């Protein structure tokens, strides 16, 4: 028992006996008896379209609530938090990069990077320099020219948008970065470059990375590969 608690504390993500069904949908979407990601680990998750990868990420982020089971993120049991506190916890501890259209179109690239800092004081407090300076540093590391930062997000190319999104996910060193197919809108060359930058920054900050993609060519760069079907037991277990 104590052992169990200890591994949970040491894990970035610890899921136990999770089930989830979309309201209105016929059956159960996810049934995950046990899934753990340790701190600092870089995990590549794949699976067929519609298998529930994005749904699992929403559950880990605390945006969706599980029907049953337990989700512990960076040592915090999400069920123990109120909805409002879960939103704060997410703002403070999880960075996101999505497939595309990551940015709020009417904000400048810089304001987009700073967005998590506006919703979370903790992210700001983890910075050694003022937030805008840190945003510019990250942007530079991600190969974004300084001139781009003051342009509205809607004027950036897709590749630039994805790098802005990566900077936004990383600012204030969240414990966990979740990337949901962040490279599928990029060509092969840019995919590699983007991944290089993302992995380098995660390494530098010691951040856990949960990376979802269809593209197995990218999986070589990760320590651990997870096929969702292997952890999701939907349809396998007899009811009851």
């Amino acid at each position, binding site marked *: 028992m104590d052992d169990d608690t200890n591994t949970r504390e040491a894990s970035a993500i610890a899921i136990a006996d999770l089930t989830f069904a979309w309201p209105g949908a016929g059956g159960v979407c996810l049934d995950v008896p046990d899934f753990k990601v340790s701190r600092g680990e870089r995990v590549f998750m794949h699976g067929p379209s519609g298998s529930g990868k994005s749904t699992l*990420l929403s559950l880990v982020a605390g*945006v969706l609530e599980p029907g049953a089971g337990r989700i512990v993120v960076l040592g915090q049991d999400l069920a123990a938090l109120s909805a409002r506190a879960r939103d704060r916890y*997410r703002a*403070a501890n999880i960075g*996101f990069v999505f497939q595309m259209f*990551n940015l709020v179109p009417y904000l400048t690239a810089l304001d987009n990077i700073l967005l*998590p800092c506006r919703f979370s004081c903790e992210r700001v407090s983890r910075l050694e320099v003022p937030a805008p300076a840190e945003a510019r540093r990250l942007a530079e590391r991600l190969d974004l020219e300084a001139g781009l930062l003051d342009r509205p997000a809607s004027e950036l190319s897709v590749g630039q948008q994805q790098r802005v999104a990566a900077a936004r996910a990383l600012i204030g060193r969240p414990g966990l970065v979740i990337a949901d197919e962040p490279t599928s809108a990029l060509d092969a060359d840019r995919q590699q470059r983007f991944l290089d930058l993302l992995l380098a920054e995660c390494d530098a900050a010691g951040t856990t990375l949960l990376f979802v993609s269809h593209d197995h060519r990218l999986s070589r760069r990760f320590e651990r590969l997870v096929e969702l079907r292997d952890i999701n037991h939907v349809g396998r277990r007899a009811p009851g």
Partner: protein
Amino acid sequence: MSVLLHLTLRSIANRRLTVSLTALAIALAVAMLLGVERLRHDAREGFAQTISGTDLIVGARSGAVQLLLYSVFHIGDATNNVSWHSIEAIAEHPQVEWLVPISLGDSHRGFRVVGTSAEFFERYRYGRGREIGFAEGRPFSDLFDTVVGAEVAARFGYRVGQSIVVSHGAGEVAFADHDDRPFTIVGILERTGTPVDRSVFVSLEAIEAIHVDWVGGARIPGVSIPTEQLHRFDLRPKAVTAALVGLNSRVAVFRVQRFVNTYPDEPLMAILPGATLQQLWSVIGVVERALLAVSAIVVLVGLAGLVAVVIASLGERRRELAILRAMGASPAHVFGLLALESALIGLIGCGVGFAMVQSGALLVGPWLEARHGLLLSAGWPSHGEWMLLGAVMSAAFVASLVPGFRAYRYSLADGMSVRI
């Protein structure tokens, strides 16, 4: 909160055109509402002050409204006259400071001729104690001098020095002209927005003079007294239609009223013009309330447009809301974002609408008053206008909840994934 305000302002700035058109629609609706309210208020005020500074109006006993209608508005006719003897008796009452007799019955090209004393121009007050001013000329002094109101002068292009003829009887079709006794215009009055504008003023003696060779509404056949001979006649009036009375002290108003109402020699009555004007307004006030109702509906239409625009934008903004959710925004934040946006648009609409009325009143007000006698005053919102503005803003706030709740529901259902 400051996050929301920042995001809201940027989002509004990003959709300037739609947002400003929506705010403009609301501003126009609010301007209409406030404009109607202000015109209505000023019209009532102006109406209630058609005659001010006069404490009592005395006439033959009839209805209060009827006496007001014929003596001030020149609508309808008196049932009876008041004998000069009674007028003198009232004028001698110790509480009476001044008395201006009025004699009606003749007309000039459809406008009423008012026989009165020259004191009328000093004593008559309208609005908040404003005096009648002379645009040109002076009060009458000679027997056949006349002073015309602003509208009479404007309608016929009269100037000082011109000759006019008055007709016996009132209304558009007068019975016979007093063409043997023409009058000379010696004064033209400034516009007042009261029935004074539509009146032709002559002295009481002149009224007597043009009727010396008349009996019962017709010229005595074969009798024509030359104008030079008129001084031989006693031109003091034998009777008048009504009289405006001013008192030494307003406190005495009911005492003097009782004195007139119980005058033994003749059935007379005295009315308080302000009270009777209010009574009359309540009859014609239905129209203004209907106007106000119409503009309230216009405001509702404007707000419905606001809700429609913001909800329509929601479809495009679901992705943005999902991003904000992932960044740590709560569903309450999302609700606040949308509600704040529409509340801000509503607020801007109200502010701009008020500014429109205000500048309209400043720019067009003087012209309206000069040309049409309509009062439209500029100034801070009155109590009634604050109530209206408050009602519109509350309605805008309630309307803003609609997109807010929709966004709230979306963000709960969508989570971080974006639905199309």
